[in-house]
């Protein structure tokens, strides 16, 4: 019997696809819709301590090969997010609460609120490239990252994932620091810092000037990062960046990802992208006589 089941740091998932943070993850209803589409786990929008409107529009640019976004971490704040979590949990798959903060204490507080709301794990956004004082600004420094992970780890009993940025040559160091501080998994990659100019208007399109590049354009960068992480770490890695079909999901799995997250592809393919990826993987396993998806994790290193 072919099985796509994954146990990710104690989290039981029916399949290795997860909704990536920030895409359709702000409301309980939209999270539920992704579970219906077949996602094996759901990551919420990154939630902060207080409501936040995010950057002014334009916050998104469509490119032929992906998207550029500078949403600026809009979110209703942790206080109001309990209702959304309650709804999302009805999807029957694990829900991972993504949080962002400026200090270890803020991260830990948010994480423990997420735990209280019933989150199966917490994901620390240490990698957003377009929100000053948050995200990537912290996530490029191994010591800061270790401090945050340690504090969170000591305050919650659910798995803690650290989501990292590829916008530095220190990715591996940072990941090892997170592992050393007790992280249960590494999520890579967040978006690449990027900018688009409107030549007619002679200015950057995004109101925030720069933003984060996602989608197929970043896939080869993400796959490279996961390959390198797999050689350097013992904890599981969750691959993200440009997954849009079963082949791109398997690229990540073969370089060492225990699971993959899908974000941008939801834009054009809708929630069924999760189901489509899974049935594609199932077909591949059938054709190749593979029973457990775990048999494929890391095979590209042999």
């Amino acid at each position, binding site marked *: 019997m072919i099985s796509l089941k994954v146990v990710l740091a104690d989290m039981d998932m029916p399949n290795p696809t997860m909704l990536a943070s920030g895409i359709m993850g702000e409301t309980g209803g*939209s999270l539920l819709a992704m579970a219906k589409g077949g996602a094996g786990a759901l990551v919420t929008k990154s939630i902060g301590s207080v409501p936040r409107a995010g950057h002014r529009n334009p916050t998104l640019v469509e490119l032929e090969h992906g998207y550029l976004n500078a949403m600026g971490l809009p*979110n209703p704040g942790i206080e109001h997010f309990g209702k959304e979590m309650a709804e999302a949990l009805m999807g029957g798959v694990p829900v991972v609460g993504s949080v962002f903060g400026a200090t270890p204490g803020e991260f830990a507080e948010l994480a423990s609120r997420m735990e209280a709301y019933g989150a199966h794990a917490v994901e620390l956004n240490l990698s957003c490239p377009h929100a000053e004082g948050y995200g990537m600004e912290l996530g490029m420094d191994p010591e800061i990252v270790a401090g945050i992970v340690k504090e969170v780890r000591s305050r919650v009993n659910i798995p803690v994932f650290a989501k990292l940025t590829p916008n530095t040559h220190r990715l591996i160091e940072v990941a090892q620091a997170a592992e050393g501080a007790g992280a249960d998994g590494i999520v890579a990659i967040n978006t690449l810092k990027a900018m688009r100019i409107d030549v007619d208007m002679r200015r950057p399109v995004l109101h925030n000037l720069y933003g984060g590049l996602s989608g197929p354009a970043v896939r080869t960068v993400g796959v490279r990062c996961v390959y390198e992480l797999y050689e350097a770490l013992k904890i599981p890695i969750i691959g993200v960046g440009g997954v849009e079909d079963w082949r791109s999901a398997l690229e990540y799995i073969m370089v060492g990802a225990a699971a993959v997250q899908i974000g*941008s592809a939801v*834009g*054009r393919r*809708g929630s069924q992208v999760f189901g489509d990826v899974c049935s594609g993987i199932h077909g591949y396993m059938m054709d190749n006589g593979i029973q457990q998806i775990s048999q494929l994790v890391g095979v590209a290193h042999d």
Partner: protein
Amino acid sequence: MIERALTRQETVSVAAITEEAENVLTLRFDWDQLAAPGQFVMVWLPDVDEVPMSLSYIGGRKGITVKNVGEATKALTSLQVGDRFVVRGPYGRGYHLPQGKILAVGGGTGMASLLPAMERIPADRVDTAIGARTEKELIFEERAKGTSSNVRVSTDDGSKGFHGNAVQLAKEMMDASDHDAVIACGPEKMLYYLHQLCVEKGIPHQMSLERYMKCGAGLCGSCAIDGKRVCREGPVFSGEDLKEMKEFGRQRRDECGGRVRL
């Protein structure tokens, strides 16, 4: 397997301006892009904002009909012929053109979204109810007459036509003759009661909704209503879709994604 192709982003310039009513005007612009009735575009005014607007004209010379309600719409309604702005899209799913006799119900700027659909249906199959708070805010009555065999108007204050709201007028028109389908766009409260009415009478219907939109492209989730994206699965939803929505007519979201009672 790719559901939707890439949309285009393009700089266009104002080719003509028509005042439709107090604080409402139509900007026409040449944009060589296929669009379906009911679709919308994201309109960017550099240094100001980027906001969703229904296409009120969908031929080669397109149009948006803007009501001045805040910063972005004020800037849009201040543009002069020749001024430039940037559009991306078209986005969303529009109306499926229905068979048989149609009742089109528009409130406020809702007529902007309906007219391109009405213009694709023979006039003798279309009845129209246009609602406004007062005569001065009434738009597109003449244009509707060109594409509709029977156009009636309601005003809340009775300053013109039927004294009452658009739903009451629609009920009167439904009682007066049989309709095979209703298409509607307007304030959500109006749509909500019209939906109840249609369900009661068993008339198939489609309604175009509005939600706070950021990306417009189906990613950010800010426009979600019961998990459906107004920018992608909508803005036009069928009566069946609407029936299943717990938030329709009851709740929207603010810029932070927080719940707001309607």
